[in-house]
């Protein structure tokens, strides 16, 4: 199950995403929470302290291999597997939701 939550700023995306992620984890599901907001604060809703939340580092751009073919079509592939990414760069949170901070990776090559 892969759910993305969006909406106007301030309407409660992060509250709903983070709380739902924790609820699902409490039911025994393995949950990865991805913060793709350029102003990320999902860590706090997941229960990390302010200090620990500000210490979370974004995914490095090196996990993506970006190529442009002769027609100018850009493709990006993940170099390690998703699980490797989650294990290596994810941060555990109090309900064991694994937090991944997208940072600029998701934005690479946009536009």
């Amino acid at each position, binding site marked *: 199950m892969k759910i993305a939550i969006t909406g106007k700023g301030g309407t409660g995306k992060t*509250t709903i995403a983070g709380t739902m992620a924790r609820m699902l984890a409490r039911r025994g599901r393995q949950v990865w929470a991805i913060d793709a907001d350029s102003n990320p604060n999902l860590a706090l809703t997941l229960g990390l302290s302010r200090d620990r939340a500000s210490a979370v580092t974004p995914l490095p751009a090196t996990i993506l291999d970006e190529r442009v073919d002769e027609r100018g079509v850009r493709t990006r592939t993940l170099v390690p597997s998703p699980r490797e990414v989650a294990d290596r760069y994810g941060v555990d949170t109090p309900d064991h939701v694994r937090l991944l901070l997208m940072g600029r990776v998701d934005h690479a090559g946009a536009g």
Partner: protein
Amino acid sequence: MLDERDVTTVVDMEAGLEHLSRGTARHVDSLLVTLEPYFKSLETARRTVEMAREFEIGRIAGVANKLRDSDDAAAVRDFAAAHDIPLAGEVPFDDELRRADLAGLTPLDVRDSPAVAAIDRLASVMERKAGLKS
């Protein structure tokens, strides 16, 4: 990067629309759009859903949030119905969540929050939509 079968992935997306065409949004099976009962939020949700349909992003649903009374609920329901946005949940306004945030706590630290209860029901709805057992 989101295809691990036994894992549940929840993505907190950026506000706005342009991200829908790239990256993480293309690989999800459900897109949830928040609808707060004021026009700019509803209009953002409408445009987001319109664009998500163009990009053929899986299932699309709305979640009403910060509903203070039955008029708020009716306003969001009417708007959602007018634009064919199915509502997967309705979360009431709960000022305790804001207070908790100020105190460095999370929604799940608030006892008996009706908003948290509604998000729990939303989680069940999303599990059912995905064909998973609660």
